[in-house]
């Protein structure tokens, strides 16, 4: 039983990891300004303010925003395309 569950779990992980092809495609269009028709500024406001006040754009440099958004992608369960859209928006905003 445990072995079957383990095989099932590994299969599910492999299946989801296989979605990397789509991730690869998405990463090439990392500068896409919209995710599922949502304005990236709105996406930023919705996702970040759900837990805390939004930090001013000038609080971080462009590179720092990249790291912060990566951190928040993991913590807040953002999808890769959402994280890239938010990072691109913050990095293109006036510093």
């Amino acid at each position: 039983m445990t072995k079957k569950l383990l095989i099932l779990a590994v299969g599910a992980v492999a299946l989801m990891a296989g979605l990397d092809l789509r991730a690869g495609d998405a990463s090439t269009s990392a500068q896409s300004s919209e995710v599922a028709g949502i304005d990236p500024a709105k996406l930023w406001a919705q996702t970040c303010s759900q837990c805390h006040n939004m930090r001013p754009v000038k609080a971080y440099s462009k590179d720092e925003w990249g790291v912060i958004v990566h951190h928040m992608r993991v913590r807040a369960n953002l999808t890769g395309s959402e994280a890239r859209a938010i990072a691109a928006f913050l990095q293109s905003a006036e510093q």
Partner: protein
Amino acid sequence: MRGWQSRRGMRHGHHVGAAPGGGRFSGKFRAAVAGLALLTALPVGAADQQAPVTRAEYDALMKQMMALQKEVADLKSQQAATAKAVAAAPASAAPSPGKVTGKTFDSLQGQIDEVKSITDIVNPGDTKFVIAGSASSTFSTYSNTPSNFGATFAPIFLWQLNDKLLVESEIEMELEDTSTIVNLEYADISYELNDYMTLDAGKFLNPMNIFVERYEPNWINKLPDTPLAIYDGILPESNVGVQLRGAVPIGPSRLKYAGYASNAPRLIADDSEAAGQLQFDNFTSLSDYKAYGGRLGLEVIPGVEAGYGVQYANVTANTGGVGSTSSFLQSVDLEVKRDSPALKGAFTLLGQYAWSNVGDVTYDPNGDLGFGPTNFTNNRSGGYLQLSYRPKRLSDFLNRFEFIVRGDMANAPSSAPGAFDERRLTLGVDYWLTSFTVLKAAYELDERTNGEPNQNGFLLQIATGL
């Protein structure tokens, strides 16, 4: 207490190494050509890395590169002419190619090194480092307890090794009695497998303890202290193991998930005040037992999320003479954040209820520890509900205030050693100095039903994200 968001500190790495110099004409020439090829390739590499090289810098480099190319072409002509002259002239009249070309190439090498030093400055490297975190200072006074000042500092270190790989760690330092307590709150390495899945390994925050994972940093937590239940042996704060987590969009909704395997908690069996409680800070896996758990959360629409989490583990104690048993933890949580134009402000509702069951064992079976033998149904529960309102649209003065009310409770079996049953009602007011610095005041009404005196409290705190 824990914090994250903050700043600062960039490290530049991945410098281009200096081209080696040579003492011979042909060696220097090859080095020059190789250097030029390297310089020619540099703008492309910089673009690949999303390097912030400005147009002006790029143009300046291109200009210098063109000049160097011209200089190389001139040198080639000069070399050809020299060879021709040497061949035509008598041996005694031949110029010393080593002296003439060596000086020229030394000069050229110097210019190449100069250009490379410029490119090294603007090259951001692949590795990026940010320090975030929080800091706070608290004054608290509880009935039947001396008032006290306290302070915490909780830096978070974030290393982004590349677009997929992140190392993060938080170290919390706080004062307690005569000591400074230093805790490694988490330290994990995450790798993005794809857009919807991240693999995370190390000491990570427990995903079913949603308060710890999202709201605990002092500049995010709206009250000066933390709710009951999330630390009282009912839910883990962190686990040491590996987890898979991510999110999948479903129409306008998002399904958030996390699943993990980690060291199992330890069953406390030798403490007369805590026997039967789970010790989650168990960094050594006893009897090879592991914990398996996770959380599923559905963000129905942005700002409205509900979740359910579980953790199962066989547990044992390394002392106390008890055997092994099972433990099962469950939790439901709710997060709602809405703006209300009618009420000219924003509401936030947070709630979590957790309950646990540990299988039957006999504690202190021989009576050696002075509280046994004892056996009890080991069910514990606790939770909190917190509502806050910030009048964002009333006036520039009032929009800095936020008003909070929280009810929380936690209990352990009445027949267990160290039994407790506590309920609190907390009223708080925050004043936001900036979006990440806040002054908090709160009054806590406490009720304990196990014979302990109530501890009403008043707390003041200033907290900031770094």
